[in-house]
């Protein structure tokens, strides 16, 4: 077991910067998920740790050792590949014991370890079979057994669930989490599936174009995304982002203390007078107060982010919109709306709420306490969320 540190780790393929000065520390025993869209460099990061890709600049430290020049076999890591990488001509038992043979673990010790690894993943009955005779889920478990059998310093998992069907993926996801908890082995887990990342990771590192965007526990990542990319990428669907500009508050939106907000305006958070601003967005206005208002004043143009669950169809809402499509997902309904300026937003509501029809004109109320503010130019987060 060991910590893994990236210190300015950089990887180039010709002119393409695949990983750009990555600074990241994975704690001992942590399950850290590397999340990002295809081509964001997450698999490259994993392969750099494994030693399958050279580090062009910076260092990678496993435990106390800089491993830049250490051969893959001497890093004491086990990798689970997307394709499982099982040896097709060897039986399950031989596949699992393969890493032990090279390490001169012989005889009874080897048999015991293989039996234990197989038993812990429910493979005992399958030890005599060849990979071709196994289902996808079984192959996946053989690959896991091969990884755990020699008790490495860390596991590297490269989208290990992406070849499984949906139901099996959920099951195996839980199995991997349980296994990792039981063994307490530091694990780097690469995926492009944000649900997988949210459910499995102690922390998630979001990558985009080789640049680390944010590292945080799943809930924090969801509640306080560092920029518009993270805001959009996490959540299903992602956060609604609407361009906005700051204006001085119109007096008509001033609510009476303790009173009902004026029509067309969202409720204003409590704050001293003068600390308020209005946001003009998509043909409507939102009033901001408190810290959010202070932050908003600093930026010339903003992007307002709001999660689908913090939007509601409400006749007294601040924003006008036309319903584009209504998607029923069983327990909830996603209503895709086009705001007056054409920006599409998604509203999530319970299936028991009245459902609008496509094409209907509605008004959307915004939970202004749950707004996220981002700088329009850099996309960087300005204000606190909920």
């Amino acid at each position, binding site marked *: 077991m060991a910590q893994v540190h990236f210190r300015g780790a950089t990887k180039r393929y010709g002119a393409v910067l695949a990983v750009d000065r990555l600074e990241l520390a994975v704690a001992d025993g942590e399950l850290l998920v590397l999340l990002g869209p295809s081509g964001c460099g997450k698999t490259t990061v994993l392969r750099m740790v494994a030693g399958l890709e050279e580090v062009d600049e910076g260092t990678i430290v496993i435990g106390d050792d800089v491993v830049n020049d250490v051969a893959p076999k001497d890093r004491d890591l086990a990798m689970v590949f997307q394709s499982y990488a099982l040896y097709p*001509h060897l039986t399950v038992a031989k596949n699992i014991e393969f890493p032990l043979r090279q390490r001169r673990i012989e005889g009874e010790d080897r048999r015991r370890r293989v039996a234990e690894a197989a038993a812990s993943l429910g493979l005992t009955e399958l030890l005599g079979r060849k990979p071709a005779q196994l289902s996808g889920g079984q192959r996946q478990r053989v690959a896991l057994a091969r990884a755990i059998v020699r008790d490495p310093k860390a596991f590297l998992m490269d989208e290990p669930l992406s070849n499984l069907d949906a139901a099996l993926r959920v099951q195996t996801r839980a*199995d991997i989490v349980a296994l990792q908890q039981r063994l307490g082995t530091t694990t780097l887990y690469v995926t492009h599936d944000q649900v997988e990342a949210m459910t499995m990771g102690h922390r998630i590192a979001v990558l985009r174009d080789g640049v680390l965007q944010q590292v945080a526990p799943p809930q924090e990542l969801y509640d306080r995304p560092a920029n518009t990319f993270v805001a959009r990428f996490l959540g299903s669907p992602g956060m609604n982002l609407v361009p906005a500009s700051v204006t001085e508050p119109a007096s008509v939106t001033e609510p009476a203390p303790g009173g009902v907000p004026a029509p067309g305006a969202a409720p204003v958070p409590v704050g001293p007078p003068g600390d308020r601003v209005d946001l003009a967005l998509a043909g409507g206005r939102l009033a901001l107060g408190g810290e959010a208002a202070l932050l908003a004043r600093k930026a010339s143009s903003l992007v307002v982010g709001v999660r689908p669950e913090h939007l509601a169809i409400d006749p007294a809402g601040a924003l006008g919109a036309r319903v584009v499509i209504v998607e029923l997902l069983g327990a909830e309904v996603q209503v895709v709306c086009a705001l007056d300026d054409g920006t599409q937003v998604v509203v999530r509501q319970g299936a028991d709420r009245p459902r609008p029809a496509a094409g209907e004109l509605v008004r959307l109320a915004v939970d202004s306490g749950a707004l996220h503010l981002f700088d329009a130019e850099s996309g960087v987060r300005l204000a606190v969320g909920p």
Partner: protein
Amino acid sequence: MDAETGAVAIVPEPPPAPVRAAEPQGGGAHRRRAGRLVARYVLLTFGAVVVLLPLYLTVVNSLLPTTQLTRRPPPFFPAHPQWRTYATAWDQGHLGIYLRNSAIQTVIIVLGQLVTSILAGYAFAFLRFPLRRVLFVVFLATLMVPFEVTIVTNLDTITTFGWYNSFAGLTVPFLATGFGTFLLRQAFLQIPRDLQEAAALDGYGHWRFLTRIAVPLARPSLAALGVFSFLAAWNQYLWPLLVTGDNNHIRTVQLGLKLLRSTNLQSISVSLAGTVIAVAPLLVLLVVFQKQLVRSLTAGAVK
């Protein structure tokens, strides 16, 4: 964990394939299919006769007494098979020693080609080195050069090395082959790169990966290459003729047959018996490795 295993057990039997209903117009289609089948078999039979008849006649004629050989038309079945011709061929033609020489030569060439093709094919498939593509094209280009073009140079080289009249001279020019390298490179390229990387993480270097993983997985191609190089080596005539001089201790069986014919002009059946003896190892090989041979003919046709 065993949910899937359980699920497999309770999967219902697939419904029986629907019985083809007797369609009203089905008779015509049926007849057309039958017609095509008959045509196919007629064609295949014709091909088989063309290929096998000479072999059959060789065997028959080898068993005929000299008097019947000249009969027109020649007899199609030997009424009184003369098995003695085989003993005569074996003794007079010294076929025992020639077969041994051919076996030694063939085994050396086959093993040499397998080893060099494995190593070169692996290098082209898995290693990164400068000029890899160019070198591979050069390898392929050697396939376009007929052996006859290089024969004088080769003979010169062999003589310079003092290998004239030796097994080294007989075999060394054939120990490496562009075809084998190409065949095995293609076979190794089919092996997913993940397997090599997984093995690397488990501590297996190139050599161990080659012997433990790559070669076992490329077995069908290896068998095909083995059969091909066996056939080519066994059937060599021109090169052994050039490099063996008059040394009976390294002359191969093809040369032995030629000598047998010249020493036994009056008995054609004896030389034919010798031919049958020389062909026998090939026939055994073809029967045993038929599958690999067919597979290798289509190798590279589809990825």
